[in-house]
């Protein structure tokens, strides 16, 4: 291993060698001159006799080199010199690739975090959640859960949980916090160990409200209790009831539902105390989700069959409460198919689109490289003529490509990491603990580097054929004008492909944006403008029984008295909020066997005050509104929406004055019909809805809908909203200082519902912009190159009297033809692709003339923008200067 000292002696060795060879040739020449040759003749003959001096010298040097690595290093140095010589090209190439790789890294990272990475618990692969066979929903009643837990033979313990919004008070500092109510076996079933203190266990549960314990999440302990290790054993008030802090959950564990990070855990048996649900009601499915580890050797299908048989048994045993109950097993982290399916579809679509971006970038860089290779064909030919091997030249080209791809990959990855960090820290929906933990991990880095290398190979391979076919003699003879011809076609095909891809991206982003804009201006069955909401739960503030409606009336009165307030309505829940509404099955009046299987429909249910419709802006189509006289002592009545009337009574006309039955057999008379709207999501199918008088079935959950007069105190502007909100807060505080009220403008509450579509639109919009940028650089590159290649020809045309139009056509006609071809192909593909979008983006209709026109205009504008500079250059051709040049 004497190469190490060799490396340091090398400079001298090489100098000696060159000197020696020079002297050799000199000596030979002198010898020849002595034999009578002229000096010139002698020198020529001496060189001929010596052979290819460069090759021999290089070969002599190679003796001292560490072969592969060093020649690669030499290639790298040569390539970086070449790249530095054309900084514009280098920056453009790196930038293009950084964009494409960055986009891919971000999308992959999100997909990795949500879909690929398993839950952060031991043995996540055997953990499955229950989902109903007939709907992507896992809700259960508590007795159902107990039966399923105790009767199944497939799970190592079945756990269940639910979410609730509560108020935590550690001593005169009440604050709202989301809590996960978990079954006693939750932590043990997941196999977790506490970070501090201990967990609650199955043995702690002894019926309703028997286990007033709290386990804090690490994050909440960190922020709210400032890492105080003394919290264990402390008693705090939750909804004004004492709870003991048992311990702190391990860091990085935020419950078993991604996105949603609760503040702490309480035993499920405490639910009646916190939210008022009935643990014994078999018919009310309020548990959010049940899940468990499959026993070894049990497949999900076997387990589902096992659960189905329990479901059949329950249906037979409790026909009054239970409908058909079948199950499928899904992963718990995205609430089974509910979030999982759309997210998978969307991420797959997004991954495809970003893949296309990368492909477009590669096509872009490929044609740049081809153009560069064509420009350098003279150099290549010279090197070939001087004895360089084609392999060596190709290796140089690939080295350049790889260096650019790695640099682009690094820049892209760094920016994507910054973006992902920001995304992870972001809390998109105020008042909900929604987090998108999308920090990149090793997998993301590996994918980014791999993508960079693969794309380097892809675009580096484009000029290969060109180099292999270079004939040194032809090129040196012909000058640079002759390399056009067939080889241009490969680049043109690449350009068309690239433009098509970009048009796909532009189309889909326009479709998405248009859909979102439409969805924002739609009527959802209630007004958004001039409405402010106040939300509270009187149960959390200690109200119960008759005190609840009394307090609610006082609240309405207080808000009604505020200046600028037009009307105030009250409801126990509101459409298009995250909590959603209650629901219930109903029967036609002539159904006598009230089993769930005979139900007419499962309908959403809102309990409202008389002024609700006016305040919310929901139109009453016919019949009457409620009055304050519709209380417990008067006959049970309801207002239903049009869809309900159609589904239960056959037509809206036959509904008014007629009856339907509730689960418990109560007959309810329909007194009015309200318009249809959107209740849970913007993309839902028509939903049946019944409105019931709040006084006939009181609820502590209180939403106050406050309509302010339009124009007054600039409502709509943030300032106006703020004033209204402050006035409302003060008014309610005067009634009861202990009330936890959250006040928000109605359009703000749509944030949660619109979150998905908005994210989709933003991501598609970004991809569209990237696509547009790529097509600009692509067309620009092509147009600029063809203009510069044909400058001489254009000069001759001008000299012969060509008009501006003709010059432009000659220079750019081809680029525009390619643009049109690519755009048309992209438009068709894009329209096909947007069918997929319709799942996520509301009203994402590809057959929208505005979108079609938009794409055409956008692509034409891109074309104009990209060819502007080359066109100017073509027009400013001065034939005299040009013809003088060569």
């Amino acid at each position, binding site marked *: 291993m004497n190469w190490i000292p*060799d490396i340091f002696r090398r400079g001298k*060795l090489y100098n*000696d*060698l060159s*000197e*020696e*060879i020079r*002297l*050799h040739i000199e*000596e*030979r020449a002198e010898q020849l001159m002595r034999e009578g040759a002229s000096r010139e003749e002698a020198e020529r003959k001496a060189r001929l*006799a*010596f*052979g*290819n*001096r460069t*090759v*021999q*010298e290089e*070969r*002599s*040097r*190679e*003796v*001292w080199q560490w072969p592969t690595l060093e020649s690669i290093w030499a290639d790298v140095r040569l390539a970086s010199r070449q790249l530095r010589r054309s900084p514009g090209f280098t920056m453009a190439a790196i930038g293009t690739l950084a964009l494409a790789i960055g986009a891919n890294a971000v999308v992959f990272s999100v997909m990795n975090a949500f879909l690929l990475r398993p839950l952060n618990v031991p043995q996540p692969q055997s953990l499955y959640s229950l989902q109903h066979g007939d709907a992507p929903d896992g809700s259960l009643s508590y007795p159902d859960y107990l039966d399923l837990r105790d009767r199944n033979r497939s799970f190592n313990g079945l756990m269940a949980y639910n979410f609730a919004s509560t108020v935590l008070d550690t001593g005169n500092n009440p604050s709202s916090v989301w809590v996960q109510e978990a079954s006693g076996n939750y932590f043990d079933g997941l196999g977790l160990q506490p970070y501090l203190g201990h967990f609650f266990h199955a043995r702690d549960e002894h019926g309703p409200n028997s286990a007033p314990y709290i386990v804090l999440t690490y994050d909440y302990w960190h922020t709210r209790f400032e890492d105080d290790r003394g919290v264990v054993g402390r008693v705090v008030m939750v909804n004004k009831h004492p709870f003991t802090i048992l311990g702190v959950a391990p860091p990085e564990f935020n419950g078993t539902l991604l996105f949603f990070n609760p503040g702490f855990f309480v035993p499920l048996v405490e639910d009646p105390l916190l939210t008022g649900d009935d643990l014994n009601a078999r018919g009310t499915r309020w548990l959010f989700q049940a899940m468990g580890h499959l026993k070894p050797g049990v497949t999900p299908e076997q387990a589902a069959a096992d659960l189905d048989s329990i479901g059949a048994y329950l249906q037979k045993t409790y026909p009054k409460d239970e409908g058909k109950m079948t199950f499928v097993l899904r992963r718990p982290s995205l609430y089974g198919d509910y979030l999982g399916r759309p997210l998978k579809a969307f991420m797959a679509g997004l991954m495809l689109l970003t893949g296309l971006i990368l492909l477009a970038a590669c096509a872009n860089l490929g044609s740049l490289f081809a153009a560069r290779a064509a420009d350098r064909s003279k150099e290549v030919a010279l090197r070939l003529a001087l004895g360089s091997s084609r392999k060596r030249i190709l290796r140089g080209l690939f080295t350049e490509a790889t260096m650019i791809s790695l640099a682009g990959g690094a820049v892209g990855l760094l920016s994507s990491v910054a973006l992902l960090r920001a995304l992870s820290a972001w809390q998109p929906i105020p008042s909900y603990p929604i987090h998108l933990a999308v920090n990149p991990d090793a997998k993301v880095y590996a994918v980014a580097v791999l993508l960079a290398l693969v794309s380097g190979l892809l675009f580096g391979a484009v000029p290969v054929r060109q180099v292999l076919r270079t004939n040194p003699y032809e090129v040196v003879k012909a000058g640079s004008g002759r390399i056009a011809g067939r080889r241009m076609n490969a680049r043109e095909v690449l350009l068309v492909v690239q433009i098509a891809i970009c048009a796909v991206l532009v189309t889909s982003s326009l479709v998405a944006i248009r859909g979102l804009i439409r969805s924002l201006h739609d009527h959802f069955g209630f007004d958004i403008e001039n409405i402010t909401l106040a939300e509270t739960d009187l149960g959390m503030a200690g109200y119960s029984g008759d005190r609840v409606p009394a307090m609610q009336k006082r609240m309405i009165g207080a808000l009604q008295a505020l200046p600028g307030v037009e009307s105030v309505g009250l409801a126990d829940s509101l459409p298009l909020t995250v909590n959603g509404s209650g629901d219930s099955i109903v029967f036609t009046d002539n159904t006598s066997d009230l089993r769930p299987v005979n139900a007419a429909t499962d309908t959403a249910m809102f309990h409202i005050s008389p002024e609700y419709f006016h305040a919310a802006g929901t139109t009453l189509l016919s019949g009457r509104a409620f009055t304050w006289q519709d209380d417990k002592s008067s006959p049970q009545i309801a207002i239903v929406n049009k869809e309900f009337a159609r589904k239960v009574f056959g037509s809206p006309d036959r509904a008014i004055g007629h009856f339907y039955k509730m689960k418990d057999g109560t007959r309810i008379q329909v007194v009015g019909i309200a318009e249809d709207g959107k209740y849970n999501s913007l993309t839902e199918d028509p939903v049946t809805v019944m409105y019931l008088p709040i006084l006939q079935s009181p609820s502590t959950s209180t939403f106050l809908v406050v309509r302010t007069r339009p124009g007054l105190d600039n409502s709509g502007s943030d300032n106006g909203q703020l004033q209204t909100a402050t006035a409302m807060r003060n008014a309610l505080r005067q009634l009861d200082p202990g009330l936890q009220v959250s006040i928000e403008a109605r359009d703000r509450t749509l944030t949660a519902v619109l979150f998905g579509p908005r994210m989709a639109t933003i991501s598609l919009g970004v991809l569209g912009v990237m696509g547009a940028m790529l097509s600009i650089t692509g067309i620009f590159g092509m147009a600029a190159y063809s203009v510069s290649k044909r400058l001489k020809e254009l000069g001759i045309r001008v000299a012969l009297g060509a008009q501006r139009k003709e010059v432009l056509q000659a220079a750019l006609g081809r680029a525009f033809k390619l643009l049109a071809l690519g755009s048309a192909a992209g438009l068709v593909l894009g329209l096909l692709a947007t069918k997929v979008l319709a799942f996520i983006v509301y009203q994402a209709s590809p057959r929208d003339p505005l979108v079609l026109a938009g794409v055409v205009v956008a692509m034409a504008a891109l074309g104009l923008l990209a060819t502007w500079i080359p066109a100017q250059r073509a027009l400013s051709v001065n034939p005299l200067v040009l013809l003088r040049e060569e």
Partner: protein
Amino acid sequence: MPEVNKPMTETTSRDLFPGALEMMILESLRRQPSHGYALVQHIQQRSKNLLQVEEGSLYPALQRLLKSKLVKAQWGVSSTNRRIRTYQITPAGLRHLDEQISSFERMFEGIALVLNPAKATSN
């Protein structure tokens, strides 16, 4: 040594087998230390111009010998007052040459036997 042998230039690889040039250089240097130009002259004269050695191909071979410490080089001035780099065979070079020559002779004998068996056996 043979494994360090890079393929020779296209023109000489036809004429010489790997290691032949090195062997001839070492043999020439054993007789008399000399510089590159003189080595070429010497080899061409001795081979009566049967071997068409491209002059340049001498240098990679010399570098290989230098690297393996079979020869050593020194700058100096020739009798004709030229600056020259004189190569001299080392003891290791001498040993290596003997081994090479004997192995070459064995190989040559083998080849001769295959090419002309009758003559070889009658010998």
